[in-house]
């Protein structure tokens, strides 16, 4: 007996791409608005500065994207960033370690912290929010025990790297941090799209119980994702070291929220299972462009700055939402 299962393969709009498209359109809109209001805004360097200023955040947010895609959250990123800068500063300045030894050391510390949180989440079934909050307290506490003061790094290699400008054209340049960040984004996008690990991340976000029954290695992937986020935070910390040539235990206070906001504005669902790294890049651009617009305006006092930031955030999010709705 045959069944007649002819289903029309008509055009089904790629609903999951809509938020990203909408965000992109709004970014362009914001840029055009900025360029028409403030002449200096139109120079390409303003866009490149967005990347230069946010390179470290981008790396952190990429790690966060992985975690959020599994339906988790990582609150420790800000503290781990701070810890990385403090450890780098301490090792370079006080212990006189060479740069090429400091980099792996810091990355390992970040990854180990992430791994620990992953174990808490997966093995002991502690809610991600709390497990990483513990990590947040812990890393920040370590910062303070190393130093309560910010200090400069005057290592010549670091200074060199920090001040290298890679020219992209007349009066246009980017920093080494941007290159690193873009490489991280590219790798992350590839991993999420093209590897088994990446797809498992999505599966866990979709339904962790099912993922387990489907025979996927949920435990390893979960722990790996937090380890990855710890690693990315440490890398972000290193980029911040390059950016500021200093270590500061107060670095990255509230950074976790900025990173989460960027990821979510980029269209990733906080419940997991849906989203793209590219969206995260756009999310960061949105936050960055809001800040840049306000700086260019330069007439707002402190509280109006907060209020207008909130209002612009609102405008972006609602427009994105409505665009997504309209088209479905």
């Amino acid at each position, binding site marked *: 007996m045959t069944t007649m299962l002819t289903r029309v393969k008509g055009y089904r709009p790629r609903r999951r791409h809509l938020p990203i498209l909408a965000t992109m359109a709004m970014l362009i809109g914001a840029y055009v608005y900025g360029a028409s209001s403030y002449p200096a805004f139109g120079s390409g360097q303003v866009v490149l500065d967005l990347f230069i200023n946010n390179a470290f955040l981008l790396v952190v947010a990429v790690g966060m994207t992985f975690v959020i895609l599994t339906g988790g959250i990582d609150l420790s990123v800000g503290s781990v960033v701070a810890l990385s800068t403090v450890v780098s500063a301490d090792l370079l300045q006080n212990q006189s370690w060479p740069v090429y030894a400091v980099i792996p050391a810091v990355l390992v510390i970040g990854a180990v912290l992430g791994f620990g949180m992953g174990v808490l989440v997966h093995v*002991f*079934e502690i*809610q991600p929010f709390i497990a990483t909050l*513990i990590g947040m307290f812990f890393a920040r506490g370590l910062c303070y025990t190393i130093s309560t003061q910010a200090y400069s790094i005057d290592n010549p290699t670091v200074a060199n790297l920090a001040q290298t400008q890679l020219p992209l054209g007349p009066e246009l340049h980017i920093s080494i941090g941007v290159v690193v960040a873009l490489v991280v984004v590219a790798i992350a996008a590839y991993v999420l799209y093209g590897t088994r690990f990446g797809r498992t991340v999505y599966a866990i976000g979709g339904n962790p119980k099912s993922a387990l029954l489907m025979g996927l290695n949920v435990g390893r992937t979960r722990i790996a994702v937090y380890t990855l986020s710890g690693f990315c935070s440490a890398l972000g910390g290193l980029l911040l070291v390059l950016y500021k040539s200093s270590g500061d235990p107060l670095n990255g206070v509230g950074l976790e929220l900025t990173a989460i906001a960027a990821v979510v504005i980029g269209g990733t*669902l906080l419940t997991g299972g849906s989203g793209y790294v590219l969206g995260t890049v756009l999310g960061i651009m949105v936050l960055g462009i809001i800040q840049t617009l306000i700086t260019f305006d330069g007439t707002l006092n402190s*509280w109006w700055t*907060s209020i207008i930031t*909130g209002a612009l955030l609102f405008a972006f*999010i609602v427009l994105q939402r409505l665009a997504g709705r309209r088209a479905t």
Partner: protein
Amino acid sequence: MKVLTAHRLFWPVVALLVLLLGDLIAQPSFFALELRDGHLYGNLIDILKNGAPLILIAIGMTLVVATRGIDLSVGAVVAISGALACLHISGLGDQNSLGGTLAAVGMALGLAVALGAWNGWLVAVLGIQPIIATLILMVAGRGIAQLITGGQIITINSHPYEWIGSGFTFGLPSAILLALAVFAIAAVLVRRSALGLLVESVGGNPEAGRLAGLRSARLSWLTYVFCALCAGIAGLMISANVHSADGNNAGQFIELDAILAIVIGGTQLTGGRFSLTGSVIGALLIQTLTTTVYALGIAPQAIMLFKALVVLVVCLLQSPVFRRKFGRRRKTPPPSPIVAPEKVEAGV
């Protein structure tokens, strides 16, 4: 005994007691209570008084969390409500006038409710993810609070207003009495009516709730309003406690503490089952932790590490997996955590 340890509030309560015991050992006079100016005075009273705002916010946020939401804007609402009330009172001819103070309180709470309605609208009507929806107010709200205070700290001198934050009634801090009153009202409202069940269903499986005919949007909207109202009251308390409104610092990072309290109290951030009593215990635990830090004289640099350690221990104790792995003393594997939470909760 087994029933007792299986209760989901058992471990948080144990942690709270252990912490208090530690205080007692470190500082034998820790539990000392004396009567001063007709009211009780001592560390325990401080814990209750200073913990009251957190308790309130944790109660409000518990319901939001139960519907799978989160409210990051409570800190901003705290600042705004305190600022508005103090602004109004500072403009009064007679700051001690009861009517003027009541008007100020009414205005502040009214604004708080409006802010909650705004959050709820973004989440329930526009369907924006809660964390982002409330982030908007978290960012803008600080600005609004500072706009109200003009960036300065508004100092006031109003006895009726102070009562909210640092006054005493029946020898006990009025703040804790207020918080307990809100808790009692919320608990009765939630467990004596069907609200609790409906909220838990909406949080447990939103689509199922919708198909069962629940007005889930309205319900989650309401939870945001309630949460903001609680935050508003907390804002009054915090500002009344120091007779001043600080638009920038009041309620900073209180959202994190509240969420921590809720989770310690046994409510899952993924929504569904919730426990108001648990959240209250969680909040008390956090406040006790803060007071302990001061009582033990822990150096400021070490506070974070100490907090990390305590929270870690509490969470591990609560984790059935951890107890199963490391608590080999009991012969049968411990049962899954929730046995009959209903009875306890319904009893409040």
